[in-house]
């Protein structure tokens, strides 16, 4: 028996292992032509109505960066994770965290027209995605498209959003929910880190960026739920501990809102959710928050 025919036989055996169970199942289905018992179907339907899928949606890196820009913050590249650090990230945990972090830095750079940084950070994010085995999330075509449209902010945002979706859909669809959660956590912490670093304490009261940071309290439980759903993964378990420390500081901030009243703008057909909010965060709490966010973020990028 020559080498090729031996290989052929092995191949047929491997193929059979994968395909035959499917064929058997099909055969069984053909045998069971009798209608499904009504009682069973009703039971299935009852079970389905009890089943529940839950999504915990954190602000994406692009949304976080947009919130910082909208709050009137200025650009400062000192607060981005240097691209030279990519070589440090060799584990799944560090690559996942820094995929979120670099995507946030990329989004931030794009909103402030930092053309060279946009290319550099897209390449850094690509290295993280490649390291995680995310096939084609960011490919050469993406980089070329980015370069061709480097002065077109709308197209750049579209590319960032598309590549981020490629990554998180790949992870979600390949049963890597824990890694997807770590990516999101990395991006969210990076946004919070940049925002806290950019606050000018001389203008603390009435500072719009401070208000944006306070708003992040509304997402801390979402992040914790997202992580809790993936408990048991050592990297996630470590993150839960860190996020709980952050939550303890957020718990010192009070947010009170009046009930929502809806009103539709007849011209645009956009619904306005009307409510008033009062918040309080002391400078001390802000400093504490800044310190804990920095500690967590430093542990991500080291």
């Amino acid at each position, binding site marked *: 028996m020559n080498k*090729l025919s031996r290989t052929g036989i092995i191949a047929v055996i491997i193929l059979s292992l994968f395909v035959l169970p499917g064929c058997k199942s099909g055969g069984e289905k053909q045998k069971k032509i009798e209608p499904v018992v009504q009682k069973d179907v*009703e039971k299935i*339907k009852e079970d389905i109505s009890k*089943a529940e899928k839950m999504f915990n949606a954190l602000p*994406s890196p692009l949304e976080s960066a947009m919130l910082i820009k909208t709050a009137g913050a200025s650009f400062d590249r000192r607060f981005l994770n240097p691209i030279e650090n990519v070589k440090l990230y060799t584990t799944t945990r560090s690559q996942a965290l820094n995929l979120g972090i670099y995507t946030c830095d990329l989004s931030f750079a794009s909103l402030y027209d930092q053309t060279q940084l946009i290319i550099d950070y897209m390449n850094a994010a690509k290295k993280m995605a490649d390291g995680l085995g995310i096939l084609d999330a960011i490919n050469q075509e993406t980089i070329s498209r980015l370069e061709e449209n480097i002065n077109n902010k709308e197209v750049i945002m579209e590319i960032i959003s598309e590549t981020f979706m490629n990554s998180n859909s790949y992870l979600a*669809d390949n049963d890597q929910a824990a890694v997807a959660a770590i990516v999101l956590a990395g991006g969210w912490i990076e946004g919070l880190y940049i925002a806290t670093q950019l606050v000018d304490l001389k203008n603390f009261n009435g500072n719009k960026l401070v208000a944006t940071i306070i*708003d992040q309290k509304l997402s801390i439980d979402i992040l914790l739920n997202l992580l809790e759903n993936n408990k048991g993964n050592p990297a996630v378990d470590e993150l839960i501990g860190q996020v709980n420390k952050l939550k303890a500081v957020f718990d010192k901030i009070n947010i009170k809102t009046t009930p929502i009243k809806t009103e539709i703008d007849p011209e645009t057909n956009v*619904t306005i959710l*009307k409510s008033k909010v009062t918040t309080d965060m002391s400078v001390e709490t802000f400093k504490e928050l800044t310190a804990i966010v920095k500690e967590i973020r430093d542990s991500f990028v080291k």
Partner: protein
Amino acid sequence: MKTIRLFSGILLLLLALTLPAHSQCKAFAKKEVLPELSPYVHDGNYHAAILVEGEEAELYKTFYSDMEYRVVVMGEDKLPAVEFKVLDENKNVLFSSKDNNNSRMWDFKLESSKQLKLVIKVSSFNKPGDIPASGCVAIMFGFKVKK
């Protein structure tokens, strides 16, 4: 060389045979749902799952006062109508697709940032005895800076 080619071919075939049903979800979200977000910018997040007739899903998200949002909830054609509601923390219904001509999208903005809950329900074909239909349901968000 022939051996390598043969094994590569088999591996590709196996990959195709074992592709999860979920990958159809990504294609659906990308081709059918994303275009509906325009002119809003997609936030980049991906929320999609295979749901079965009668099944419910929930989504929690914080929406910010500086932004204007569009949410699009769509199910594949093989599913019966997909309804969705948006509720505040006191379970008050802020929007119901059923009360809005089964609209699959909602545009809104907020005076103050809020965490809201979306409840998505795949309705039923109401055909007793039939195996329940299943298919992909995607929930996607777009945003733009509030004017």
